[in-house]
Every structure is written in C-alpha cells, then in structure tokens.
C-alpha cells in the first residue's frame, strides 16, 4: 500500500460561526488576511516536502470560494511541488473537469507538471463538489456527460503527436488541438477518478483507471469497489490489482491512543466547520432524484448524518477516521482493507484546522515509522 499525505490548505482563523451562514461560496474574503495566508501557504508546502522526506507520496486538490481550501488552482501548487520535490509521486485529485471551460488548457497544465517533475504526475479528474456549482457558475445538470467529453478531449490531446486534431463536441470546441509540451510519461500520466457511487465506479472500472473513495466508510466504499470489479468482469476485462483502488480518510497516529484521538479531534475541524446551507449542498440536478427525495424526507443513510453532527467515536466506527496509537491505526486500516477487498492507496488527510505544524509532522512521523511498513506488506 502507498500512503499519500494530503492537506486541504485550509484558512482556519474564522469568525464565530454564528456570524456567517456559509463557510463556502459566500463567506466574505475580508476575513482572509493575505499575510497570514502567505505564511500558511509556505508552511503547507514545507509539510508536503517533509512528507516526501519521510517516504510518503503527495496529494493535492482544489476547491473554490471556500475557507476550507485555499488552493483554487491545483495546477499552480502542483507546479511549485513539481520543482521543490524530487522523488514523491504527485497526485492532483483532482481537476474538476466538468467545470473547467477549457479541457485543452487542463491537458497543457498537466503535461507541464508531468514534464517539470520528470514524470511524477498522477492526474486525477473529479466531478467537483456541489458547492462549486454556484462558486463557478457551473450548471449542475448533465455534468457527467460534460465530464466524460472533457476527459476524452484531454486524453486525446495528451496522446496525439502528429499535429492538430479537430474537436467539435457537444460541450467543447477546438479545431486545432496540438499541445506543447506533451506529457513526460507514456502514453500519459496515470489517471485517477473519484467515485462516490456504484454507477460512477462502473464507468471508471470499464476504463481501468484508479478509483478513489472519499470518506465513504465501510459499506459505501465496498459498493464502489464491487461495482468497479463487477463492471470489469462483465466486460471480460482483466481483474484489477490493488493499485486500482484508493481510500481517503482522516488519519492521525500518536504514541498513545489518547494522543492519536487528540490529533484526530483537531482534524475533525474539516467536518465541523463545514457550515453550508442547503442551496449549496444540493444544487438541482447534482444529486440523483432519489437522493433528493430522501434528503427532503430526512432519511438519507446514516453516513450523511455523520457529517452533520460528527463525533470521533462515530467517525472511527464508520471508517472515516483512523486514529490512535500505531497498533490501533493499523488495526483500523486493516479492518477497512479486509472489508472492501483491499486497496492499494491510502489518501490521508493529515492536516486540518488547528492541527499545528509540529503536531502535523509528529502524526506523519508516527505513521511512517510505525504503521506504514506494516501496510506496505499487505496483500489480499
């Protein structure tokens, strides 16, 4: 198993939550101090580089108009890391390609990062969270159709080397596509796609990309992985290796359980501070109609409620947080691993909120020294 250090680069110094009704989309940026923000950016880049020194891989993402994530452009921070690091794989998970108006530009940016890093890019594509719809004016309906057209165009741009090709699709038009540079890796960087539902997992499985689950817990993750494997088997394709499956959770390893829990409670800021009103969590068309019906009735599965009133015990029980001393953390990860049929990538949100630099580094250090060697040996 490969461990990936991931931080959302949050700006955690927020006003009292009673002063605002949404941390996303509309929280005025007068609450952001660019001088503090600059210090935070440099600190977070240092932490990624420390993660590399410890032997971890690096994961970056992007979100828009939110204090929970100050990387509105994943490619920019990837550019910095491509230059500042030497050996870690660099995962961007990912480019919200249903929302980017120019997929060819995404293909160019990713090719640049791949060349800068001499072939260390792992390129993720995501649909983008519901809060991004208003933030970017992206129509929430028929997004997956747009997503796959963007994907097809990007892959074609990466893999065409004989001069311009033409693209006049439903959503994107480019009559002269001929990107410079082309990617360093052949035929192109590995592709990762986030899937939170079995139906999207089937699409990813058919293409053989790495499927990533975020905080989907035991049953949600199993459903996604099973759908991935099931679709490949239906199509008569090869059975996927562990390296096709990734799971993201909040992870903090301490010397003792108490220290681990204390770190995890700080990471929970990510869930606790996510104050977002319904118009941004459920833009029309983003979620399937059945999900919307359940949501109006208040009968969505328990895992959704977990995000509303998170408790550490509940999050750990559901496999959204792995925390404690090294043995505890290993046991918890192993339990998830066994339940879902194994996974080859653990994406660790290991910094959030008020978890300071020293605490972040200590959690990573405990993990890499005491837990990671055991995870590397896991096979199904």
């Amino acid at each position, binding site marked *: 198993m490969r461990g990936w250090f991931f931080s959302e680069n949050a700006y955690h110094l927020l006003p009292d939550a009673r002063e605002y009704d949404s941390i996303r989309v509309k929280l005025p940026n007068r609450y952001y101090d660019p001088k503090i923000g600059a210090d935070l950016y440099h600190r977070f880049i240092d932490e990624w580089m420390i993660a590399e020194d410890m032997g971890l891989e690096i994961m970056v993402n992007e979100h828009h108009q939110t204090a929970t994530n100050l990387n509105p452009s994943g490619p920019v921070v990837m550019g910095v890391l491509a230059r500042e690091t030497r050996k870690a794989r660099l995962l961007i998970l990912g480019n919200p390609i249903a929302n980017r108006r120019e997929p060819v530009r995404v293909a160019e940016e990713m090719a640049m990062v791949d060349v800068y890093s001499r072939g260390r890019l792992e390129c993720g594509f995501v649909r983008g969270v519901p809060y991004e719809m208003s933030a970017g004016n992206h129509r929430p*309906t028929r997004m997956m159709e747009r997503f796959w057209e963007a994907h097809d165009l990007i892959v074609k741009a990466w893999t065409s080397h004989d001069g311009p090709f033409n693209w006049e699709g439903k959503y994107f038009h480019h009559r002269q596509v001929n990107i410079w540079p082309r990617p360093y890796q052949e035929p192109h960087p590995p592709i990762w796609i986030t899937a939170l539902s079995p139906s999207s997992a089937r699409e990813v499985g058919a293409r053989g990309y790495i499927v990533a689950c975020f905080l989907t817990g035991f049953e949600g993750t199993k459903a996604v992985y099973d759908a991935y494997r099931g679709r490949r088997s239906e199509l008569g394709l090869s059975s996927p290796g562990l390296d096709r499956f990734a799971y993201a959770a909040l992870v903090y390893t301490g010397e003792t359980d108490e220290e681990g829990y204390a770190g995890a409670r700080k990471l929970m800021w990510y869930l606790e501070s996510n104050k977002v009103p319904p118009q941004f969590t459920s833009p029309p068309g983003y979620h399937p109609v059945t999900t919307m019906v359940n949501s109006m009735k208040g009968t969505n599965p328990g895992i959704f409620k977990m995000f509303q009133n998170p408790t550490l015990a509940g999050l750990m029980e559901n496999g959204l947080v792995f925390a404690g001393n090294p043995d505890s953390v290993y046991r918890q990860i192993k339990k998830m691993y066994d339940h879902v049929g194994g996974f080859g990538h653990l994406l660790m949100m290991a910094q959030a909120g008020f978890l300071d630099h020293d605490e972040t580094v200590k959690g990573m250090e405990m993990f890499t020294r005491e837990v990671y060697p055991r995870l590397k040996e896991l096979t199904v």
Partner: protein
Amino acid sequence: MLWLHGEEGLDPQAPFLDLLAGTGRVVAPSHPGFGHSPESSTVDTVDDLAYLYLDLLAEQDRRDVIVIGASLGGWIAAEMAVRSTERIGGLVLVGALGIKVGDREARDIPDIFALHPDEVTRLQYRDPARFAVDYTKKSDDELAIIARNREATALYAWEPYFHNPKLPQRLHRVTVPTLFLWGADDRFVGAEYYGAAYRAAIPGSRLELVERAGHFPHLEQPEAVVERIRGFVQDRGA
C-alpha cells in the same frame, strides 16, 4: 390556448387550469424533465422548448392560439413569438422572465440557486406561508416531482440565467396582441422595473397588475388571472 408553466411545474389539480379551461380549450404540456415528463437528450435550452411547441401547434394544425406563459413559461412563449406568430393569435406573459434589463453587475433576477429555499419562497409569493412546502406530508412521488422541477429549471435557466441576451433585440417581431400580467406584490422581478422594460420592448403591448399576488399570480389569484385572460381574448376579438 396553450398554457406554458414555469419553474413551479404543472399541477393538474391547480384551480387555475380548471378555471382557464372554463374559457376555452386549453393544451397544457409539462415541459421535458418536469413533473413526470421524460427528459430528452436533445432538449436542453429554452430555444429547444420554443421550437418544440411551435412544432406542436403545427402538428395539431392549430391556428389563432393564445399562448400564455408564466415566469420561465413566459420566456418560452416570448421565444416562440419572435420565431413565428403564424399560428399565434395573442400572447399573455405572466411575470415573464427571459430578458436582462440592467447592466452586467445588476442582479435583475435573484439567484434562486444561491438563496435559501425559504428566501426564494418569500421573494416569489405575496403570502409565502401559504406556499411553504411541508416535505413530511408529501408522498415520494410528489417529492420526486419537486426535485425534477428544480432540476429541469436548472437545465434550461442556469446560464445565461433566466434570459437570452438576444431576446430584447428580437421582441419587435412580436406583432400579435400582447398582454403582460404582473403580480402587484412581485418581490422577485418587479413590474415597475422588469415588467416595464419587457413591455416597452414589445410594440403595442400593455401591462396590467394583479392585486394581492406575487411572482406566480396564477397560483395566488387564479380567478383574477383567468378573468384578465378572458377579457384579453374578448378585446382582441372586438
């Protein structure tokens, strides 16, 4: 008459439709994606809807049709009329959307996709309490219709938001009698600003206020709206 519903969807039980049917034959389709109507992969703009209903009138060989539309439906009606009035005898636009009035920084139409649902109800109804939805008292089917109506609205009206930038320069082509009906208490798009600009773009049209009504007067004052439509049809004949 052709009734084109708006974002609120088509409620076959609504008193308005029965009252309207008392004045003549009414065709009241549910737009693709709304209610129980299937979506169509080739229909995703108001432009598509305008052609869909022009084709419907042609297919059924209707003549001298009074096209009536509310809000989003009013936008569809206006788009039909700028394309062809061959089969249209008159236009009734009820709190119609479809144009942009102010400059690029003017939020002419409140962003329903970025407002709390309660605030949207407050802006759209004179008496919001009467139209607040108690989800716990709805069947799964009724809730699915609400979700589908919202989704279809987003499909057709997300961007440009509830308008076609080209529509104002085309409205001069509407040469049939046109009546604007506007809720006197429309807090969503006001008669004095939005309604007046729309009316000014259609030569010879007039605007009448419906008292004690917000953005959906056909829901809050169905009798009054049907009375105005009846009057419009009669005047037109005279």
